[in-house]
């Protein structure tokens, strides 16, 4: 992985450099016009939020059942990434909404559940950082709760009355929009993998520091 890291960073940079051009050349949406182009970064960010919630939840489950320290370190890393990508979703969404809906925010099922999902991971990280002894287990349970919330957030727009577009939008994208969208998804996915690897390395080093402190105390 270490040998492949630099070429992958270069590839991610190329993808992120090409993505705005691809988005600029995508056909404008009939009703929303220019503002619809937020979609190309907003939706991949939401996908990474969901992915992070799943990675954090699954790693937490492995930690709870197998007591794997490695799984716990992956969970913390993914939890932090969920907050970063969640923040992007929480800012780009209202910017889109203000122009198209006329309001920054609406407390409907989709937006509220997405905000709650983000808050769960903020709380998760606070518990992990300041929870003291036993915070790993409590945090793992919170991560599982956060992961369980993801399907609800995903389908919320399909079942409840909301201003947010349904999940059908991605599946029915016009051919000209499909390419730029999946290019952005690929760029975000690659960046996500790289950030998770980097963040996990930081956790590994933190664990090594703790081990050395213990060795010094003995």
């Amino acid at each position, binding site marked *: 992985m270490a040998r492949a890291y630099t070429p992958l960073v270069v590839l991610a940079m190329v993808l992120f450099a090409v993505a705005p051009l691809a988005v600029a050349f995508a056909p404008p949406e009939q009703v929303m016009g220019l503002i619809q182009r937020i979609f190309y970064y907003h939706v991949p960010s939401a996908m990474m939020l969901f992915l992070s919630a799943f990675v954090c939840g699954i790693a937490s489950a492995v930690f709870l059942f197998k007591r794997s320290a490695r799984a716990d370190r992956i969970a913390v890393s993914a939890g932090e990434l969920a907050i970063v990508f969640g923040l992007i979703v929480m800012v780009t969404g*209202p910017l889109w909404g203000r122009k198209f809906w006329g309001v920054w*925010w609406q407390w409907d099922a989709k937006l509220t559940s997405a905000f709650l999902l983000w808050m769960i991971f903020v709380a998760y990280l606070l518990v992990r950082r300041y929870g003291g002894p036993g915070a790993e287990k409590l945090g793992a349970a919170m991560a599982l709760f956060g992961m369980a919330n993801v399907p609800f957030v995903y389908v919320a727009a399909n079942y409840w009355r909301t201003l947010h577009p349904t999940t059908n939008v991605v599946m029915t994208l016009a051919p000209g929009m499909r390419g730029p969208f999946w290019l952005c998804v690929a760029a975000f996915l690659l960046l996500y993998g790289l950030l998770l690897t980097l963040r996990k390395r930081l956790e590994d080093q933190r664990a090594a520091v703790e081990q050395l402190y213990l060795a010094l105390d003995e």
Partner: protein
Amino acid sequence: MKRRMTTTIVLMLLTAGSLFAASQPPPGTGGQGEFVPVSTLPSVEQLPAAPFLIGAYVVVWLALLVYVWSIWRRMKKIERDLADLRKRVQSR
């Protein structure tokens, strides 16, 4: 540590508060909870899309760059600690 936690909680409350303050009734819900005379309705807003679009893209790039920088900074600090501790362990 306490100060950092307080800052985080204040930021969370500010985010929630600003979202709450920003929420307005959706367009077209007049008649559900109250009757609004047409004469009192504000004129339709004509907002330019470009500032919102550019703002959104700037937020994405900025958030990612700040996050990468924060990882790099933490990494440097931990590497320094690690090297220092290794020296101390070896010198014992």
